[in-house]
């Protein structure tokens, strides 16, 4: 059980800056994110794309923005719980009891949802029967590559993950690489390697094919893949890997009794509080009249939500507004010298 003044769900730019705001005013916080690294959409969807509308930063990429936000948090000790998704929130007296899918528990008066468009989950195969084989013969990430040794593995996808794993697994497995078109979007060097391995018979390449169905009784035996021209080919396969990128799902947030509007959470614009006392929503996931889905709006929303947290975290103290340029207390928290 981890006690904290505020729990932030989502380590995207909004969540990261909100952690800064909480620490500056003297509150503790913990951050949970389903991705295995901080940065949210900035790092997952557009790490290399330049952003031009961050105040005072004429141009920076999603990756640079994330790095700068993390640098800004360096004076503080903040625990990140990455690769974990918050599944349950329950009210116990006047605190929130929060549980993750990995069994971690938090107890806190304040929960700040900075969840973007929801948590990132792998995009899955469309044939319904695939679900029966998931985590047994069908995977969307590789946790233990040893299980593939000496087996036939069919890999689907056209990006770096698919290509990298095709090259890697071809060392000890028979590999089929299947993609829906002729062009791949992975790195050219890896692609050259794939064609080399195809020539030497280490990789069987099937382009303009997609997964049609999977066959097997308990364990996977073979798969049918369908060409653009409808022709079907059966491939013996022990394992199937799908790398179609990540999608964003609202997920468990939908079950927390919050007022939702499509995939967003309704909040007030004073505290960015939801209809549940002590639960706030900020960044892309919140909704109010005039809401803009801009990173700068997330920063503002986080700054206000952080102040609202103070009241519930320290009910016997009065929050005093101070500037970082002049406050001795804030400078101490930042570990910088006062004038």
């Amino acid at each position, binding site marked *: 059980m981890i006690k904290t003044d505020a729990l932030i769900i989502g380590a995207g730019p909004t969540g990261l800056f909100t952690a800064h705001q909480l620490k500056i005013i003297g509150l503790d916080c913990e951050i949970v994110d389903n991705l295995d690294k901080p940065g949210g*959409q900035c790092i997952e*969807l*557009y790490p290399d794309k330049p952003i031009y509308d961050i105040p005072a930063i004429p141009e920076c990429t999603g990756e640079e923005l994330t790095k700068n936000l993390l640098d800004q948090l360096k004076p503080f000790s903040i625990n990140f719980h990455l690769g974990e998704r918050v599944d349950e929130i329950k009210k116990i007296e006047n605190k929130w009891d929060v549980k993750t899918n990995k069994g971690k528990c938090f107890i806190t008066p304040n929960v700040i949802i900075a969840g973007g*468009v929801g948590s990132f989950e792998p*995009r899955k195969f*469309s044939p319904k029967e695939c679900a029966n084989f998931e985590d047994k013969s069908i995977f969307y990430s590789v946790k233990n590559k040893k299980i593939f040794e000496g087996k036939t593995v069919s890999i689907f996808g056209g990006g770096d993950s698919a290509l990298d794993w095709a090259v890697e697994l071809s060392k000890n497995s028979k590999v089929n690489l299947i993609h*829906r078109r002729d062009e791949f979007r992975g790195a050219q060097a890896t692609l050259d390697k794939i064609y080399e391995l195809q020539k030497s018979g280490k990789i069987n390449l099937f382009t303009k094919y*997609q997964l049609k169905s999977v066959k097997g009784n308990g364990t996977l035996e073979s798969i049918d893949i369908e060409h653009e021209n409808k022709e079907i080919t059966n491939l013996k396969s022990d394992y199937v890997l799908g790398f*179609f990128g990540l*999608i964003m799902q609202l997920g468990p947030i939908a079950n927390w009794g919050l007022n939702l509007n499509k995939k967003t959470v309704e909040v007030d614009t004073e505290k960015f509080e939801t209809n549940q006392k002590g639960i706030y929503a900020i960044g892309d996931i919140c909704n109010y009249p005039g809401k803009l889905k801009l990173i700068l709006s997330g920063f503002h929303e986080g700054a206000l939500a952080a102040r609202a947290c103070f009241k519930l975290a320290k009910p016997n103290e009065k929050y005093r507004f101070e500037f970082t340029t002049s406050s001795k207390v804030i400078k101490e928290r930042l570990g910088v010298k006062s004038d």
Partner: protein
Amino acid sequence: MTKITYIEHNGNSHTVDVDNGLSVMEGAVQNDIPGIDGDCGGGMSCATCHVYVTEDWFDKLEKKLDGEEDMLDQAYEPKKNSRLSCQITVSDELDGLIVNMPEKQV
């Protein structure tokens, strides 16, 4: 104003007037038409505004930008006539455009 017809996977059809200059995705979202999400807001980075464009219209649309086909790799059941509706800009030439939606976006 340009008439666009959105057909859900279950056959429900919605014909609406969309302002020129908006994207086909925005036309759906602003008119509360179910089946097109547009999670990333038109940034060509999520593939949740995926539609199938009927053959006769497909060739009349502006060509795909580089990144669109890459994103379609990640769409649900992409086909030859798949497009991201955020990348189709509504104009007079598209009056009567029909787009069909996949079974789901995610």
